C-alpha cells in the first residue's frame, strides 16, 4: 500500500476540463487554490465552520475544505471565477456591489457561491429563510444586513416585511430560550 501515491483525476472546473495528479489528502479547496490557480475561493477556518471556501459541486453548495479532491473526480465544480459570463457579472455579484454587501471581501466569494446554491435549492421564501439559509457563511466585518439585502433582491423577496410569514417549512425550530 503506497500511502504517498498520486491519483489521476479530472474535474470540470468553471466549464473547463482540468487534469491533476493529487495525493489522497489534498482537499478540493487546496486543489483549487494551489494547483488550479483559482485563488478566489478562500481558506478561512479550514474546518467547515466559516463558509469562506464554499463552491458549487454539480450545482450544490459545499464546503470545499471538507471534501477530498480525489472524491470529486469526474464532478463539475463552479467557483467565484466561474460566476460571471465574460464581462457580465452574475446578478449576485452585481447585487453585492449595489447593496455594499462587503467590507474586507474575504468571505464574499463564499457568500456569493452559497447564495447561488441557496437560490438553486428554491427553499427560501422569506427574509427569515434567507437569513437562516445563509447561516453557513460568516462575515466578521458584520455586513450581514447588506448581504441579506443583496440575496433577497436577487430572489425577489421584499425586505419591507422582516419576519412576516416566517419559516415556510421547519427552518424555525421554535422559540429561542437562550
Amino acid at each position: 500500500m503506497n500511502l504517498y501515491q498520486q491519483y489521476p483525476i479530472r474535474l470540470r472546473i468553471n466549464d473547463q476540463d482540468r487534469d491533476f495528479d493529487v495525493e489522497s489528502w489534498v482537499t478540493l479547496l487546496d486543489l483549487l487554490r494551489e494547483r488550479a490557480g483559482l485563488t478566489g475561493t478562500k481558506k478561512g477556518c479550514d474546518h467547515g465552520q466559516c463558509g469562506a471556501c464554499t463552491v458549487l459541486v454539480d450545482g450544490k453548495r459545499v464546503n470545499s475544505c471538507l471534501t477530498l479532491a480525489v472524491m470529486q473526480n469526474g464532478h463539475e465544480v463552479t467557483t467565484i471565477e466561474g460566476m460571471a459570463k465574460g464581462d457580465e457579472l452574475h446578478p449576485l455579484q452585481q447585487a453585492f456591489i449595489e447593496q455594499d454587501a462587503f467590507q474586507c471581501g474575504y468571505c464574499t466569494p463564499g457568500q456569493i457561491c452559497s447564495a447561488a446554491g441557496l437560490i438553486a435549492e428554491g427553499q427560501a421564501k422569506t427574509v427569515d429563510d434567507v437569513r437562516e439559509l445563509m447561516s453557513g457563511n460568516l462575515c466578521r466585518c458584520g455586513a450581514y444586513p447588506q448581504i441579506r439585502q443583496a440575496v433577497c433582491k436577487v430572489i425577489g423577496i421584499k425586505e419591507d416585511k422582516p419576519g412576516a410569514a416566517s419559516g415556510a417549512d421547519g427552518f424555525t425550530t421554535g422559540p429561542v430560550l437562550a
Partner: protein
Amino acid sequence: MNPFAFSQARDIDAALPLLAADNARPVAGGTNLLDLMKEGVMTPSQLVDINPLEHAGLDVIEEHEGGLRLGALARNAATAYHDTVRSRYPLLSAAILAGASPQLRNMATNGGNLLQRTRCVYFYDVGTPCNKREPGTGCPAKNGINRQLGILGTSEQCIATHPSDMCVALRALDATVHVKSSRGERAIPFAEFHRLPGDTPQIDTNLQPGELITHITLPDAGRFIEHSAYIKVRDRLSYAFALVSVAAALDLDGGTIRAARIALGGVAHKPWRVEEAEAALVGKTAGEAAFEQAAERILQGARGYGQNDFKLTLARNAIVQALTTAMRGTEFAKRGTE
C-alpha cells in the same frame, strides 16, 4: 492530515472486504471524518470512498412497509426536504434542518450523521488527555470546559455528548439501523445503536468492525404528524450545536394524551429517552402540569459538572416548552410564533 491510501467502492460487496481491513474507514460526506483527520484525532491508514454506492441505490428515500426507508448515502438536505419526510415525518425534517449549515447538510449523509463524534473540546485537542481518544489518559472535562457536555448517563471516564439533531428525532420515532458486513446483515434498534460511555468511552456505537450502515427504517408515525416539535437551544440563533434539544411528539384525543414521544439531545452520550415518562403521560390531560411531571421523570439522576449545571433547569424548561409547542401543533412549531 496523515498520509493514507484511497480507494473507491463501486458496489457494496466490493466495499465490505476493504472496510474489514485494520484501520480502514468509509468516507461519504467527509464533513466530520476529514475534520477529525486534520486535527489528528482520527488517523485511518485507508479511506474507502463509498459515494459511488449511490448508484447502487444506497441514497434512496422511499415509503417502505407503511413506514419510511432512508438510504445511508442520502444527504441530510435531500432527506429533510423530501416530500414524504416533510409531510409524514415533520419532526425528522425539523430536526435535520436545525443542524449544521446548508452546505454541510448538502454533503453529510444519513449514515454519517449517526456516526459523527462528540465535539468535546478535549476530544478534539490532541494536546490534552481524553479517555475517548486515548483510553486511560483521563477526562479533564469533568472539572474543565464542560458547558456543552453531558448531565445524564455520564461516567467517571467520559461526560461527552452526541452532537446530532437528526438522531434525536430518529430515537423519538423508533428508527432501526440496518447494517451489512461480510458476515451478513443485521438490524439494530435505534435505542441500542449508540452507547453510554461507561468504562469504554472510546466506543461510540454498537456497530462492529467491518459493518457498514446501508439504511435506516422508521415505522409509520402518522399519529404524531399534527403535534410534533423540535426545540433546539444553543448559544447562537443558528449553526451551533445544541446545549439542549428536545424532540417531542403527541397523539391527542381532544385534550387527552393518547401517546407521547420525548427525546433529548445535547445532554448525554446518546439521544436520551425515558419511555416510562411517556407511558405516564397516557390518559393525562395535555398541559403544563403533566409536562412538568414528565420532565421530572426524564431528568431523574441528572447532574451537572460545574459549567453545565444550568442544563438541569434548561432541560426541564425545554421539555415543557417542546411538549407545549407540540400540543399547539406542528404548524405552530414551524412558525415559531403566533
